[in-house]
């Protein structure tokens, strides 16, 4: 019973949502689901947030290694909660939008959250350089192909690519790097994208059917049969 009901719910909800697409009176069900999901996600946050508080609280309590940083995490968490839920220093008071300019919540966002996020994102510039270096030591034929294609596309987007191959005569214009880059983007790149996309869709269909038919139940924490 404990294991059958969840499988029945999955099958029923999945089947109904597939069929809903073909019946106009029911076609909004997908949107309704996302509203339900948004509501469930907030309730679930009590579990996630609770876990955050418990793990860091435990570290502080046991004076474990780096417990000071856990204290900082919890302080940041509760500060943001208080600033947002009670709309502290919000010029429009409790009725105003939580992100109103001048509110503590927005200030914490602008001064802390935003620069931290942008800097983390900017690290990608360094990582993309080290990954390029790794690709440069192409281990096999596939990696070499990846590298050559990447190199042509990269050069094709820079003035260097234009100057380097401008001498090639017009009848072999495809060999000029900017043209070659465009050709790669519109021919082999497109073909690869399509094969990947069709493959992904078939994988999704098969996986979803395994879930709806109850063949795949790992997510329930139950083993098959």
């Amino acid at each position, binding site marked *: 019973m404990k294991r059958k009901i969840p499988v029945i719910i999955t099958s029923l909800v999945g089947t109904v949502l597939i069929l809903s697409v073909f019946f106009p009176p029911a076609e909004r069900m997908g949107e309704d689901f996302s509203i*339900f999901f948004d509501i469930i996600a907030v309730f679930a946050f009590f579990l996630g947030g609770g876990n955050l508080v418990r793990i860091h609280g435990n570290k502080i309590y046991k004076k474990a290694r780096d417990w000071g940083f856990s204290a900082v995490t919890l302080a*940041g968490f509760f500060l943001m909660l208080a600033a947002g*839920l009670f709309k502290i220093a919000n010029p429009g008071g409790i009725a105003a939008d939580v992100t109103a300019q001048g509110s503590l919540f927005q200030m914490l966002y602008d001064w802390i959250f935003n*620069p931290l996020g942008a800097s983390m994102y900017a690290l990608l*510039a360094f990582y993309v350089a080290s990954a390029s270096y790794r690709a440069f030591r192409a281990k096999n034929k596939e990696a070499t192909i990846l590298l050559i294609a990447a190199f042509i596309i990269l050069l094709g987007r820079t003035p260097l690519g234009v100057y380097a191959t401008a001498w090639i005569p017009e009848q072999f214009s495809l060999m000029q790097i900017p043209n070659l880059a465009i050709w790669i983007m519109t021919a082999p790149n497109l073909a690869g994208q399509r094969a990947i996309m*069709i*493959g992904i869709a078939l994988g999704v269909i098969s996986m979803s059917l395994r879930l709806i038919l109850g063949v795949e139940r790992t997510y329930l924490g139950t083993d098959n049969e």
Partner: protein
Amino acid sequence: MEIFGTWLAAFFTLGIISFLYRDNAWYKLCESIFVGISAGYWFVTLFWDNIHGLFWERITERHDYWLLIGASLGLMMLLRLIPPIGWISRWPLSFVVGATAGLYIINYFASNVMVQVENTLMPLFSAKFGDPLFSASPYSIVGNIVVAAGTFTGLVYFFFSKEHKGAFGGMAKIGIWTIMITFGASFGYTVMSRMSLLIGRMDFIFGDWLGLIR
């Protein structure tokens, strides 16, 4: 106040970048603050947008009582905290998984299988005088052939029920090469945009903060 904010932002920017050298206390501090602040940020946003805006206001103002089903599913999720009836928390989870499976089947099937196959069904060339395709350059004709053949062999690569041997294996090989060109193209295309992210942060450090560039 504005200057204080800029200094604070600079402090965090440099703290994160210091990770490239090695893990250090400055980075740990930034990381801890980021985790705490952002977890709080998302809870506040979810609370005001979903619970207050989507749920409470719609129930009280528009009387959309069917949203109570969503709230009951959410409450069931919390039953995990009461071990004897914790198993009920699987119901909302099954609901989410079933709905996701149902929605994804149709969306992916329509947008990835149908549309992509339809777009591939194109003439490769034309032998009819006066047809625009008749006067197409050899490059674009080769391009058309590569699109059709590349898509075909790419699908051969993903075939699971036949060993990649002989002619079939050869096609699978061409397929994976096509896929690798796709990856390379995507990689090369992204490099520049990633560099601009760093330029953005450097602009903040040397411009907004240090005032060295304007």
